């Protein structure tokens, strides 16, 4: 039972001052084993805060990140799943599923976590799963101003992943659950 937090596009301090307090109160250290961050944090203070929640943190570079040492893409294996992380501004058209599927095949992962669109998405596409945790602060994006703060918590347990989606809608935290299983044939799709 491995808990993985996926979030990104916080844009602190440029577009948002901080995470919503309701989110902050839920994120306490000790529960989460890994953090995946799609990018655009943007400053070191945010990096340190996230690091305090969990020491195992994976960040990829967004176009506004001030730390240029972050990588463009990252892959990691958790349990039976291979996860890939990329900010997503490199993939054109932004948010296009086919292009993202190309990236997924390139990285050879089961679950691809990207951001940049600031909209939550969870898609099963061409043998892989694409998850976009949205923007954790609700910061405006180049596409739209109407953004609900959201992030994702994945519970990886053997061949099964339960994805908990946390969204702040009208000041209330709403939690949704998505279940999916990895089948044996998923990887051989080429």
């Amino acid at each position, binding site marked *: 039972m491995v808990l993985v937090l996926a979030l990104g596009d916080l844009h602190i301090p440029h577009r948002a001052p901080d995470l919503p307090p309701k989110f902050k109160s839920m994120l306490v250290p000790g529960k989460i084993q890994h953090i995946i961050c799609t990018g655009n944090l943007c400053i070191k203070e945010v990096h340190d805060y996230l690091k305090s929640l969990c020491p195992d943190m994976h960040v990829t570079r967004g176009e506004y990140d001030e730390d240029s040492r972050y990588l463009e893409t990252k892959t990691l294996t958790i349990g039976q799943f291979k996860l890939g992380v990329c900010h997503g501004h490199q993939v054109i058209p932004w948010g296009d599923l086919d292009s993202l599927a190309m990236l997924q095949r390139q990285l050879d992962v089961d679950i691809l976590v990207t951001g940049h669109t600031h909209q939550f998405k969870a898609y099963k596409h061409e043998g892989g799963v694409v998850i976009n945790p949205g923007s954790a602060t609700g910061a405006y994006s180049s596409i739209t101003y109407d953004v609900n703060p959201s992030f994702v*918590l994945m519970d990886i347990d053997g061949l099964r992943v339960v994805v908990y989606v946390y969204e702040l809608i009208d000041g209330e935290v709403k*939690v*949704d659950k998505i279940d999916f299983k990895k089948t044996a044939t998923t990887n051989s799709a080429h």
Partner: protein
Amino acid sequence: MLKGKLKLPEAARRAFPDRLGSLVMGFDDKDDENGGSDLVFGSGEELETFQPNGFGLDRESDEDEEHKPSDDSDLRIRQRSDKDGASSVSVSEIIAADEKRSDIAFELSQKEINLEKLQRLASLGLPDGGGLRATAWKLLLGYLPASRDLWEKELTENRLKYAKLKEELLLSPAEYTRRKTEALDAMEQDVDSPADGPLTRQEISQEDHPLSLGKASAWHKYFQDTEIAEQIDRDLQRTHPDLKFFSGDSSLSRKNREAMRSILLLFAKLNPAIRYVQGMNEVLAPIYYIFSTDTDEQNAENAEADSFCCFVRLLSDSVDHFCQQLDNSSVGIHSTLSRLVELLKANDEELWRHLEFTTKVNPQFYAFRWITLLLTQEFNFHSIMRIWDTLLSNTFGVQEMLLRVCCAMLLCIKSRLLSGDFAANLKLLQHYPEINIEHLLQVAQDLSPDTSSFRLSM
């Protein structure tokens, strides 16, 4: 049949009265504390020199009619004496031990077990190995009823109860949700359909997600329990590091630690007032060890369930000692410590005065661990078994006997305590020296009774 060498056992029988076993064991042991013992040493040495051949031939000739095997037995005995050389087991000791074993086995095989008789026999020590100790402890703790016919029913009932409790309380929330959804999935056919498209979202309540802070949330409780579980794990790693049964990376020790972890976690969850206190693992260890090494296979398999029930029963007397709020109350640890001091005063005023006033060695400094952990940290594993035999077989309860043994521990090192100052005495008491256990228990039995506990038990 009788040869010259066989004079020993007869001589022994003539010279010593009935309670041969305890007297002989009293001064034969090399670990004897010289200061406290006032028994005769001379005959002990005699016994030792005759040991190798006399014993074996005596037994063999009782069993076979012919002399032919005697040569083999000679060799065997000599080999055995080489092995036993270090522990210098004496002839009469072995005879007495065998008699004891058969007595107890006889008692335990009755249909209606006479608990009083069992208590008397057990206080003299139960034999190691075999299932006798396990069964005796279960009877003494009240886990098994006195009548043999009811055993089967009681055991299966309790084991089932334990399995149910485990399932209810120790399930991780992920497992729980998985089982819930699996039940639903079984009804739908196309759950794993590889259809592309957005994944279906299901709305869930505020309690059902891992970050939930709600009190009723299964996840929240799970994370709270992880803290206790972590402490339990840390303590279990340190339990008896010298015994392969508990420590190390073998699958056996891992399995044992896992079982003990479940027991302690379950206890902590069922008793939120006390939860888990460091040291409970030490109290559980002997029980679990004895039950899992039971020669009866069914018992050994269900050792976890049986240990849980017996652990609960054993702790029910002393559970107040672990609760911090009750420390200063009449049932708390301080009151028990003052009873110990009273007992010491009633039996040896000189030592009491020396400890209380001259050196000001407060019982809090040394006896706290003795009492709460039932002496598991003061002696080696084997001695703990023997001491617990006596503790569990006391008619007035474990706590009363425990206080007597603690007092006896003080009396046995009296001379060293009287000649020491605060620092030396404290050091001595916190690292209690090796001592002859039978002698210690004998002193404990002979103490004049603690009047305050008599009042309580009446």
